């Protein structure tokens, strides 16, 4: 609970002394989106998206259902292409290379960009095999190395102590919250640079949600994290920057404190204060 409380208090303080003046070191850009448009068949789902995502930051994407926030997230690892009728224009550069370019191999991209889904989706395998899956598909066979990866990944997701004695149990026997943290650990096992999270706590109870949020705070020390959330408080608590999407457009993208305390656009303010959405 303490992390949330402190964060909330921080927010309050920030609001009071209006930290616009605070000097800040700009972190390195991981993703740079320029003029991205996306169509599902005839539906124009993303309109002229411009947005950069920096490392060691949590970037939250908020907005009402159907605003395109999940679509944008899935464009960042090209999972959106699993829907065959998708067309895109514009560019998204990841570390300087355009990932929408046909010559960019999706397998490369997805190895460097992990994803955590809305509903925990462990494989119907043992806990160990769930974590070892990623390294194995990338060709690691040495049992010792795999053991090490499994332990480190589970430690990284702060679930090692809970699970270390039942590594051979089926992952389906875990609680919903544990399954989601297992999925985060599974994602860490491939050692990505970026973690995309698509409403990772929307199916979890408050306690499990809190644990995931604390985990996100830890993970951002090493990873760039992009999180789509329906939960405004969550965005306020855990993110450094927030983008507000509406009808496929970015209405506002700024530091989270500004978005929540001092939104530039009226619609952002209306959405955040719960007047619509």
């Amino acid at each position, binding site marked *: 609970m303490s992390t949330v409380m402190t964060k909330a208090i921080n927010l309050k303080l920030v609001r009071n002394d209006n930290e616009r003046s605070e000097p800040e070191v700009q972190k390195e850009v991981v993703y740079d989106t320029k003029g991205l448009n996306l169509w599902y068949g005839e539906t124009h789902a993303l309109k002229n998206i411009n947005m950069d995502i920096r490392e060691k930051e949590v970037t939250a994407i908020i907005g009402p259902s159907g605003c395109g926030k999940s679509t944008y997230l899935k464009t960042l690892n090209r999972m959106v292409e699993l829907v065959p009728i998708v067309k895109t224009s514009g560019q998204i550069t990841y570390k300087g290379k355009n990932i929408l370019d046909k010559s960019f191999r*999706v397998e490369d991209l997805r190895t460097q960009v992990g994803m955590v889904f809305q509903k925990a989706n462990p*494989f*119907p395998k043992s806990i160990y095999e769930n974590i070892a899956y990623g390294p194995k598909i990338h060709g690691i066979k040495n049992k010792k190395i795999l053991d090490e990866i499994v332990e480190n990944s589970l430690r990284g997701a702060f679930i090692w102590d809970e699970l270390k004695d039942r590594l051979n149990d089926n992952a389906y026997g875990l609680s919903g919250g544990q399954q989601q943290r297992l999925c985060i650990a599974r994602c860490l096992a491939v050692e990505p640079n970026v973690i995309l999270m698509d409403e990772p706590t929307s199916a979890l109870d408050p306690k499990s949600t809190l644990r995931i949020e604390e985990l996100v705070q830890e993970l951002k020390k090493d990873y760039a994290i992009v999180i789509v959330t329906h939960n405004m408080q969550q965005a306020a608590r855990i993110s450094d920057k927030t983008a507000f999407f509406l009808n496929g457009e970015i209405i506002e993208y700024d530091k989270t404190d500004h978005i929540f305390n001092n939104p530039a656009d009226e619609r952002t303010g209306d959405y955040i204060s719960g007047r619509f959405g």
Partner: protein
Amino acid sequence: MATRYMDAELVGKRMSSRVRKNTGWKGLFFASTLFGLVVLAVLLVRIFTQGIEYINIDFLMNHLSTDASRAGIMGAILGTAWLMVVVIPVTMVIGVGTAIYLELYAKKGKLQSFIATNISNLAGVPSIVYGLLGLTLFVRTLEFGNVILAGGLTLSLLVLPIVIVAAQEALRAVPGNLSEASYGMGATKWQTVRRIILPAALPGILTGAILALSRAIGETAPLTVLGIPALLIPFPEGIFDTFTALPMQIYYWTIDASLVAEYANLAAATIIVLLVLLFLLNSIAILIRNKFQQRY
């Protein structure tokens, strides 16, 4: 609380008739099930009472003979076993391969649904038509002659649609979020198919295989068209040998029963052997299926 539309008296009156109807329908459904069970029981009792006393080691191990009392069905048992040696791998590899392509690789569109519909239609084509196809293609054009390979391939064609359709359904039933998780870690399509989708679909695929196998093992019509004899021929030792099979044996003995009455008893005994063999094969398939059955 006063009710506006739900008149207590009327509702009460209708109640007993509704409940009666409910019981009536239940009885009808039970009767339908009973019908099948009774027919099956009659068949089994009839066959067993007639045939069981003719089953002994000699009957199982002997060659055919014109003397009914010395005739054995080892040749037919071996023939059926060899047929399965051809049918099982051919249908599993081609059937599952086709299902994987149609379900996971082919672009969803008119062509794909056209192919899928036609495969379902093929499952309904009479088996004798497959016999004619086998005769033209394998026995004559490819000049195999009426050997085990020709018979096995013909039966494979016959049951392929069943395997394909069942495997497609099993693949479709694998939750999409499992493959998403795999793709999300940088797995290729093949890795995802091989390590996630196929294991999850395996129980369903094996269920289809069981059905297909049961059908293939009992088919007679296509084999008659291929000209499979039930004569005094040596035991088959490989897929290029001529052969006879258990259903053929049953067929010929049933016809010949008008000449020598005892053949009818031998046919009954052969049916028991065929049923036992079928039961054994299905048990093995079910065991394999249960071993791989996992929740997801």
